């Protein structure tokens, strides 16, 4: 096989690492409510009153957590919350959109909240929409949903492939901020998928089952299946809009190496955000997910430190040879990004 002869390149495996990261975050969002329930049982001092199932659950959680926590009631409070707002060993960290939404709704600045979102916000300045690709628990489900769409396509049910305007999500962000201010509620908490997913998992596991947000989330899954692949993230997510704006001049970005590129379009097919890596079209929407790098058969995509994208660098080496052999002039638009 050709693939075995290619030299090992770490960047081709970043996409797997990303899946590990997404899975870990999602697993934590399942585990934390379970820990909360276990802590309730511990606090109640009523092991004998638990049902047989609850006792099995208690024993399991005790086995899982006892290496890390001598006193479950206190020590297990070290990690709490969701990606929307959480606590990590006494250190509060949250989603920049939560602070922005709260400022808009309340008209006040609460510094502890703003400080808690500082690290993610600054990281986004350097890494762009990395939260969307590497951490977001909703992305995890949306990407699985894309996989479901592929399966449905295989049995003849064609998922929606509409194109809307990417700028729609900036409108959602702006209108959301305006409505938050007008109604005095933090509206984004209800329409921002990662916040909804974290909260609904907690409701389902630790409280009385799914809440109203589950309906919203299922609607977004259907939107992605029926209207546009990853449509919510691309067109409607207010957080995605905020991260895109923060990451407009991000320093870490994927760029194409034209001499290595053979214009095979695999990167464009792999990109769930519908970007155009093959013609250097990344933009502020790119979430550095590295799916295109993993898909590239000639390792022609790599991370570079640069504050802006390359303009279209022309076709790859196979494209050049094709043009040369078939006598097509260099400037002719056989491979024009705008016509895509």
């Amino acid at each position, binding site marked *: 096989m050709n693939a075995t002869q290619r030299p090992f390149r770490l960047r081709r495996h970043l996409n797997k690492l990303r899946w590990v990261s997404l899975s870990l975050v999602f697993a934590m969002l399942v585990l*934390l*409510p379970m820990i*909360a329930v276990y*802590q*309730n049982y511990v*606090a109640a001092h009523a092991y004998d009153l638990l049902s047989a199932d609850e006792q099995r659950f208690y024993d399991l959680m005790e086995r899982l957590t006892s290496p890390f926590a001598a006193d479950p*009631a206190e020590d297990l*409070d070290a990690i*709490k*919350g*969701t990606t*929307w*707002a*959480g*606590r990590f060993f006494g250190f*509060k960290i*949250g989603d920049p959109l*939560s602070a922005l*939404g*709260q400022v808009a*709704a*309340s*008209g*006040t600045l*609460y510094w*502890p*909240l703003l400080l*808690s979102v500082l690290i993610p916000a600054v990281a986004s300045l350097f890494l762009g929409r990395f939260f969307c690709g590497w951490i977001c628990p909703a992305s995890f489900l949306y990407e699985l949903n894309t996989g479901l769409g592929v399966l449905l396509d295989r049995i003849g049910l064609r998922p929606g492939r509409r194109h*809307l*305007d990417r700028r*729609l999500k900036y*409108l*959602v962000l702006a*209108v959301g901020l305006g*409505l938050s201010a*007008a*109604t*005095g*509620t*933090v*509206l984004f*908490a*209800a329409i921002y998928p990662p*916040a909804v997913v*974290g*909260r609904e998992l*907690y*409701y389902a596991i*630790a*409280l*009385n089952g799914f*809440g*109203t*947000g589950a309906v919203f989330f299922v609607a977004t899954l259907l939107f992605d299946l029926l209207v546009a692949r990853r449509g919510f993230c691309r067109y409607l997510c207010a957080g995605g809009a905020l991260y895109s704006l923060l990451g407009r001049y991000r320093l870490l970005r994927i760029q194409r190496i034209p001499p290595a590129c053979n214009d095979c379009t695999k990167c464009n097919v792999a990109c769930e955000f519908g970007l155009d890596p093959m013609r250097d079209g990344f933009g502020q929407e790119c979430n550095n997910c590295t799916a295109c790098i993993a898909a590239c058969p000639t390792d022609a995509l790599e991370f570079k430190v640069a504050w802006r994208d390359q303009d279209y660098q022309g076709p790859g080496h196979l494209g050049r040879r094709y043009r040369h052999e078939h006598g097509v002039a260099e400037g002719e638009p056989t491979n024009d990004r705008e016509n895509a």
Partner: protein
Amino acid sequence: MHRRTFLRELVTAAALLALPTPSAAVRSQQRYLRPPGAAAEEDFAALCIRCGQCGQVCPNRCIEFFGAGNGAANIDTPYIVPREQACILCMKCGDACPTDALTAIPREAEAIIAGVRMGTARVDESLCLSYQGKTCGVCYRACPLQDVAIRAGRLEQPIVIAENCVGCGLCERSCIQMPQAIRIIPDHRRARRASAIEAST
């Protein structure tokens, strides 16, 4: 769908969400408490980011979250119904809250009495066993602020000291009468009291 149609529908949906009247109508009918240290009810929805951490840290699982039943503005905000599960004043929720929706208050009697005002207990003497001549005293024993927020009179008749009662609801939870003879009347203007305290000190 045309972009224009989509935008029009988006604006319509937004306008529907913005209508404040139904939520206000429902709010006045429901009796619920906010977790200890909560901001005034009129500010709460603007300050709470619906992260759910107050519920996650509550060792007593008394904090629950509104569904659509209490108005759009209150969806996913925390509440306590003391007769189902009352607050034990562990004060972990205020610590966990990333915003100023819940203020962090130290777990000390003075600080709790000064800063917490979920509501005030009120005794219905026609329902209370002790007032009917059958010595009970359960609510007095359940109160975490015994002889500060509640006194026991003749036949253990509960006498609420309103200015010290924080409204945790342990008395209502413990009352053996059905319907309960002692109940918490929510104080949804509570932050004004807290700010009045700040101003006076």
